[in-house]
């Protein structure tokens, strides 16, 4: 059994990195804007399609292509915020944002169908199918690279939040929007930039998802969003590091249970969420703790 357990743990940790890449944008946006961006799944897919266009048509390496797709997704995030999120005001803002983001998801899905059709798209590169042998079992190169990318992304966002003037403004906005506005912070600008950053990092998540899944279509976002939501809730809404740790924890648990029963693995994924929230209602790194940092 050990010959299955150790690879399952390794798979879970590395695959958790891929999910973290997809989830950090979601939790960052919630932390600042108090909205749950249910369009995150389709944004991941858009990121995947952008990587596909660069890779398949312009022969740009998947990781090098991020230098183009990340800024492109940042701009897309700004556009979505300006047109959809920013106009929402008043007491119903949070609930209305759910509908608004859902509408964004539907429009984006339709647009992707219109542009790319319904055929499956895959991201390919020499390292996607390659693997290295470690302690008697194989670890795939693409998962190693994506895990490293996840660490870089989380570190970069952490440094942005805790080592820059903009980060202070973001954290002030996370703690109290009204107080932040009173001390001269342009809260709307902070929100717009944060939304843009949250969407931008999804470009990396989309590339990782596209390269590690068997392929994707415009419809693939729906399979992702429930897992991403579970991850950021477990990690603590608004916590960047929490998203990484929660992703690794949940995917590893799922991977281990999968040895005995793939069907139960999915159940355990969400059961783990319920159990942890019972003990820590705010998640592993809940909002209160994050905002107190």
């Amino acid at each position, binding site marked *: 059994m050990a010959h299955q357990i150790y690879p399952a743990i390794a798979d879970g940790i590395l695959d958790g990195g891929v999910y973290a890449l997809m989830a950090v944008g979601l939790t960052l946006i919630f932390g600042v804007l108090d909205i749950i961006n249910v369009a995150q799944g389709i944004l991941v897919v858009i990121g995947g399609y952008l990587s596909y266009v660069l890779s398949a048509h312009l022969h740009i390496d998947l990781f090098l292509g991020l230098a183009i797709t990340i800024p492109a997704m940042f701009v897309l995030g700004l556009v979505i915020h300006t047109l959809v999120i920013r106009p929402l005001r008043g007491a119903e803002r949070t609930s209305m944002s759910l509908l608004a983001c859902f509408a964004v998801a539907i429009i984006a899905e339709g647009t992707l169908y219109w542009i790319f059709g319904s055929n499956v798209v895959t991201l390919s590169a020499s390292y996607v199918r390659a*693997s290295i042998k470690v302690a008697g079992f194989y670890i795939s190169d693409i998962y190693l690279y994506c895990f490293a990318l996840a660490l870089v992304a989380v570190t970069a966002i952490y440094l942005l939040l805790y080592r820059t003037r903009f980060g202070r403004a973001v954290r002030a906005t996370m703690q109290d929007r009204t107080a932040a506005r009173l001390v001269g912070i342009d809260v709307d600008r902070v929100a717009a930039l944060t939304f843009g950053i949250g969407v931008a990092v999804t470009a990396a998540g989309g590339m990782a998802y596209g390269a590690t899944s*068997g392929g994707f279509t415009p419809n693939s976002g729906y399979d992702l969003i429930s897992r991403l939501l579970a991850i950021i809730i477990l990690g603590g809404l608004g916590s960047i590091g929490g998203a990484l740790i929660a992703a690794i924890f949940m995917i590893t648990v799922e991977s281990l249970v999968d040895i005995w029963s793939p069907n139960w693995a999915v159940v355990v994924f969400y059961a783990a969420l319920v159990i942890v929230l019972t003990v820590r209602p705010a998640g592993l790194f809940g909002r209160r703790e994050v905002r107190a940092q």
Partner: protein
Amino acid sequence: MRPHRSHRAHRVPFIGLGVAAVALAAGCSSGTPSSGGGGGSSGGGSKPPLVIGASLSLTGDFSADGQAYQKGYEFWAAQVNQRGGILGRKVQLKILNDNSSTTQVVTNYQTLISSDHVALTFGPFSSLLTAPAAAVAHRYGYAFVEGAGGAASVFSQQLNNVFDVSLPVANELDPFIAWIKSLPAAQRPATAAFPMANDPFATPQVQRTQGQLQPLGVRAAYSRVFPEEVADYKAPADDVAASKAQAVVLGSTDVPTVSAFMTAFEQQHYNPKIFVAAAGPDQGSAFTSAVGAKNANGMMVPDAWYPGSTNKLSQTMVQAYVARYGGSASNINADIAEAYSVGEVVDQAVTHLGAVDNAKLISYLHSGATLQSVQGPVRFNPLGENLVATAYIFQWQNGSFVQVLPANDPGSVKILYPKPDWAG
């Protein structure tokens, strides 16, 4: 080609978003009106058009198949209308979009029957949508001829109005089973893995294969059902690789599932001697572009139709299709042939009856009459299964998609066994 005839369970992510969100989704993505008939969307002559209603998954999980079915229905209608229609009435299709939803498909058929008063109904795509839709048609006394609801879950309802013109899904791998049986014991795989998606299309045929192979001494090194609605399949694929089974019978429903398993196998340096997947490799360039043309070598898949079929009706359809839409025969999806077969069967039955009467149509289809379709002969048992449909196994061989089983079929070429190693 036919990617799958089944259905992912639900779009679960938005359960918590509230009634308003669901209403928005329904409003945005369902009920898309579509009049079909290709060139025959309006009535001709003095007789009123024959309006046939169908719900198809034009968006959502099954949009690829649903759109192919729409094309198949519309192509059939156009061909029929070129010949003057059915009983002198031009066929007019009314197609609604169910967004791959088991709820919306019920609403659509209720609308088609009780509000639009269509004369006849054609089935939707996938077994999971067919089952609830057939119940609605049954309630109103409508015959429900379909081509993509071949799972046991459809027939277990024992509705007398359901008629599936295609091969029952449980029997899809029968030629593969027969081939393994025909091999000398020393050449049979000693072990096999049976991973299968939790899906009414995928599971029955793999379970049947496992049940048939085990008495032959083929030990099940892995047999698990995995959920279909997950974003990746690496964990079960790695478990199969760890089993080191000599054969893999994968209960897949689409290209991404097969692609994920193939990639994981290659990463694990595991290459089974036999790899047959329930669906995915039949999708032509969509499959080879996903997995790499060289990696496809040796991959097998069951199907009931392919563009090179020697069936005369099929050849005629293929010629007409290419003449109408351009491209080549290899571009014609098996979904289109299935949908076309639905129209052919209804056309022949209604023409035989000389009237559009659902009760008489149901009775006639149960009479044991043999009808002809591009997929081959059609004769229904009391449950509505097509008893005389033929199953084939196809295999990728050096970039070509060829028929390999049944071995004694004139259209079959020699099977590539053992499967070549991954090309990288």
